[in-house]
């Protein structure tokens, strides 16, 4: 029985989720309740923040006014930078980093296991979501849609050990694969020893996997181990995205064409 069990598990683990319709159906049943529970807690939290914390709001308001003044100055500088950037892009015939339409979704549930990392979001097939679509947020790469039901979808996070993203070191363009570890760090694998990688380097998506558009932030190099033997170096990367506080994500609806995407 144990052997049969191991064999079945090894078969199912090769395909991330069952191809049967059971998954989407069960997600469709459970997810509305998850959404209800999440909203109730957020509602209670909002009441607390908005009505019972007014004392600190006045002080915070003063600080925010000062911060706003600084931000306006900063914004002017940024606008100038954007204009310069647009000119240079046109000049160099660059394409936009993130192509086309994105759809915002709210995280309504997390993976029940601490060893596997996925979230349930409140957008699904009826919103145009398809299995395999890339998911990002303003901080960078979040993951990939793994299962879709009518109004909900399951997103496999980039920190899950089943996840892999083709990536580049922004400074030196050294290429490798970002692998999730189901902990708070990525592993940047298959980076040649001869390539120049330093602690603090920024890692971005390469766009070569046909899933994530090129140039999306992934993380920063935290540690490098170069062993005496072997052709690769071991690089630990801290994610830019705070996966513990993931609340909203953007699903890219028309990512670069890849094999993994299903036809809708």
């Amino acid at each position, binding site marked *: 029985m144990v052997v049969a069990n*191991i064999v079945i*598990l090894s078969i199912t683990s090769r395909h991330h989720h069952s191809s049967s319709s059971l998954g989407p159906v069960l997600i469709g049943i459970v997810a509305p309740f998850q959404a209800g*529970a999440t909203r109730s807690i957020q509602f209670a939290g909002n009441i607390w923040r908005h009505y019972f914390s007014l004392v600190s709001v006045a002080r915070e308001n003063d600080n925010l006014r000062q911060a706003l003044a600084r931000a306006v100055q900063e914004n002017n500088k940024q606008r100038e930078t954007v204009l310069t950037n647009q000119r240079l892009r046109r000049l160099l015939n660059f394409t936009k980093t993130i192509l086309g339409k994105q759809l915002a979704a709210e995280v309504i*549930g*997390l993976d029940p*296991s601490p*060893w596997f990392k*996925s979230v349930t979001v409140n957008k699904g097939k009826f919103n145009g979501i398809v299995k395999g679509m890339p998911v990002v947020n303003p901080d960078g790469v979040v993951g990939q849609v793994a299962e879709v039901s009518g109004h909900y979808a399951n997103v496999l996070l980039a920190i899950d050990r*089943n996840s892999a993203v083709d990536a580049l070191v922004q400074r030196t363009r050294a290429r490798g694969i970002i*692998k999730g570890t189901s902990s708070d760090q990525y592993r940047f694998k298959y980076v040649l020893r001869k390539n120049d990688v330093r602690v603090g380097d920024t890692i971005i998506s390469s766009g070569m996997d046909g899933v994530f558009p090129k140039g999306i932030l992934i993380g920063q190099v935290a540690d490098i181990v170069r062993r005496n033997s072997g052709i690769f170096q071991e690089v630990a990367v801290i994610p830019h995205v705070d996966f513990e506080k993931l609340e909203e994500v953007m699903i890219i609806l028309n990512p670069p064409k890849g094999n993994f995407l299903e036809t809708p």
Partner: protein
Amino acid sequence: MIFLFYIVIVFCIIVLQTAVVPLLFTTRGFYDLLIPFVVYAGFFRPIAEGLTTVILMGLITDCLSASPFGLYLTTYVWLYVGARWLVRFFHAHSGVVLFFIVAVGVLFENILWLLTITFLGRMELISSEAVVSCVFRQVLWALFTGPFFLFGYMQIPHWMKR
């Protein structure tokens, strides 16, 4: 009727575990809240009733998790079998055992998961320090809160009689 009641309970636990607990505990160190129910089903419910509920629980959780399909189902069924075995051969369904059994169940579940991850050749990606601290946190939580869940479930037959 009893099945419907169990399904509602299981549903509530799953929503609690996936939507409420993560908002209250920012670090993912809480244990699987379905384990006390599996232990309760193994200890106190007839096999047809308990096993059906446990299989349903496993299927739902497998669909919601990024784990290989069948891992939760496997874990719950083996845990259920283990609990029934304890009752049958050691008559261990009362007393001090109830205080520790949930923590033991949590430890068993984690060992099974880690064995599966090792078997899939992905263990190199987890640092041993992270594993020990995560399992330790879960077992500690289970030790202190598990008996409360278990005793709560033991009241189910009394509620049903009313």
